[in-house]
C-alpha cells in the first residue's frame, strides 16, 4: 500500500465504526469528569452512523467519502465534538479535492487543514485542551515521516505515538472550550476526552494500514 484508495479509506472508516463504540463507557467516564458525560454516546452513535453511511459512498472519491462521513457522524450525534469532528473530516476531504488516491505526502497537509478548519469553527488555539493539541503534533510527526521517506504503515505508527504523547500533555492543560471550559483549573489532571477519542481513531488507522 503505497497510497490509500477509496477502498482503503472505506476499510478504515468501517474499522472505526466497529471498534470505537467499544470505548463508550471509557469516554463517558472521562467526559463526565469534564462536564456532562455525553462523549461516549456521541462517539458510539456517530461512528455507527458513519458505518451505516458507507454503502451509499461506494464509487465516490476519498475526499468525498471523508467529508460525507463527517456529516453523517454529526447528523446522528450532533454535539460539540460532532461539529468539530465533522469540520475536521470535511476540511481534510476538501484539502485533497477530487483525487483518486491519498499519498503519505498528502497526510500532513490534510491534518493541518483539519486543524485549521476546527480552529475556524470553534475559535480554539493550541494549548487550550482541545483536539488541536493532538492534531497539530500528529501533523508534525507525519511531516517528519514524509520528509524522511518513510512508508505508510511506519508513518501511521509514528503518528499514533506522537498522538499518545500529545494526549499525555493535555492533562496539564486548562480547558477553555466546551463544557470543560467551565471547570477551568479543575480540569487539570484529566486528559482531554475529545483528544482521547482522536488517539483511539489514529490507533485504528495504524492498524488499518499495518497489513499493507
Amino acid at each position, binding site marked *: 500500500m503505497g497510497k490509500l484508495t477509496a477502498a482503503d479509506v472505506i476499510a478504515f472508516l468501517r474499522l472505526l465504526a466497529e471498534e470505537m463504540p467499544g470505548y463508550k463507557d471509557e469516554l463517558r467516564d472521562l467526559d463526565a469528569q469534564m462536564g*456532562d458525560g455525553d462523549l461516549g454516546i456521541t462517539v458510539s452513535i456517530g461512528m455507527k452512523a458513519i458505518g451505516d453511511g458507507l454503502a451509499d459512498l461506494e464509487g465516490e472519491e476519498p475526499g468525498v467519502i471523508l467529508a460525507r462521513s463527517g456529516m453523517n457522524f454529526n447528523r446522528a450525534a450532533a454535539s460539540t465534538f460532532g461539529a468539530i469532528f465533522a469540520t475536521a473530516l470535511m476540511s481534510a476531504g476538501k484539502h485533497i479535492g477530487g483525487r483518486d488516491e491519498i499519498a503519505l505526502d498528502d497526510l500532513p497537509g490534510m491534518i493541518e487543514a483539519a486543524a485549521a478548519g476546527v480552529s475556524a469553527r470553534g475559535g480554539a488555539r493550541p494549548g487550550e485542551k482541545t483536539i488541536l493539541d493532538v492534531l497539530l503534533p500528529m501533523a508534525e510527526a507525519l511531516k517528519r515521516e514524509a520528509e524522511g521517506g518513510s512508508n505508510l504503515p511506519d508513518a501511521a505508527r509514528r503518528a499514533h505515538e506522537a498522538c499518545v504523547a500529545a494526549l499525555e500533555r493535555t492533562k496539564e492543560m486548562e480547558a477553555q472550550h466546551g463544557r470543560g*471550559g467551565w471547570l477551568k483549573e479543575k480540569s487539570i489532571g484529566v486528559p482531554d476526552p475529545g483528544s482521547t477519542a482522536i488517539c483511539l481513531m489514529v490507533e485504528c488507522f495504524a492498524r488499518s494500514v499495518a497489513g499493507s
Partner: protein
Amino acid sequence: MDGGRERYGQCTHLRKGASPVKKLINDPFAFVDETIEGILLARPDHLKRCEGSGRALMRADGPVEGKVAVVTGGGSGHIPVFLGYVGPGLLDAVSIGNVFSSPSPDDMLAATTAAHGGAGVLHLYGNYSGDVMNFGMAAEMAEMEGIEVATALVRDDVVSAPVEEMDRRRAVAGLFFAYKIAGARAEEGAGLAEVRAAADLAIFNTRSMGVALTSCTIPAAGEPTFELGENEMELGMGIHGEPGLRRGEIMPADDVVDEMMARVLPDLPFEAGDEVAVLVNGLGATPPEELFVMYRRVRAVLDDAGIGVHRAYIGEYATSMEMAGASVSLLKLEGDLKRLLDAPAYSPFLPQWPL
C-alpha cells in the same frame, strides 16, 4: 403493541450502585422520538413537524408571512425548554437534539427554512458550544439559501464565568425571558435587527443561579451524570449537571436563597428603584410548594434591597429531567422590556397570567 419486554432490557441498566433511577420510558434510544410523538398527538392544533425533519417542530399556523421568525433548539430533557415555548407571541420553530445534546445542523436548517416568513430568522438559543457550532453551520447553509439570519446567545448563569467574561457564560432558565421578549417583539412586526436587539437587551438584563440536590440521568447513558452525597447540595450547578460554585451540606431554603441573591444582585447590578420579573424555576423533582417557600424569601431580599417585582413566574420553566433543585432568575425591566413581557403569549406549557 408488542416488544415491550424486549425493549425493556435496556431500562434495567438505569442504575449505579445504590442510586437506582426509575423511569417511565421504553427503549432509552427511542425516548426523544417517543416524546415528540406524544407531544404531536397531544397538541395537533398547536405544533406540527417542519418539513424534511423528524426533529424539528413549528407553530401549527406557521410560517407567519412577513414576520421575523424566532427559532431555537437544543438538547432534550428540559421541557418546557425548548418546544414548550413555540407558539403565538413566542417562538416559531425549534430543533430537537438527543437528551442534553445539540440538534444537528440539518434539523436546525429544517426549522429555519420552515419557519421563515420572508422577514429573516433570529437564532436564539443557549450559549453551549455544541449548539453554537451546529447553529453556526445551519446559519451558513440558510444564508446560502438566501435567508437572512441573526443570532443571539442566552448567557444568564452568573456562576459559569465572571461578568467580564460574559461571552463564556452558559444559559439556564433565563432562556424563558429571552424567548418571551424576542417573541413579543417579532409579533409586533419589528424587523430582524430590532428583534435581535430586544433579545440582546433581555439577555443582558437577565441573571440566574441554580442549586441542585440530586443528579439527573440521561436515559441512554444509564447512570446518573454525577453523584451528590446524602446530605449534599451543589450551588450554581448548570442544567446538565455542569459544575457549580461549591458543594456543601444542604442548607435551609432561606439560606440557599440568600446565597443566590448575594451573587445575582450585584452581578448586573440590580439596584434600589429597579423593577424586575422573577422566575423561580423547579428543576424537575422539587415540589411546587418548595418553590413558593423560596419565592417568599426572594421577595424579602428584594424588598430589603428596594427592588420592585412586576411579575413572578413560579413553576417548572426549564427542567433537567428528574434533578431535584431550583434556580432563581431576575430580569431587570429596562426600556421596552416591560411592555414586551406583558404582551400576550400562548403555549399549552405557559400560563401567562394575567393574560
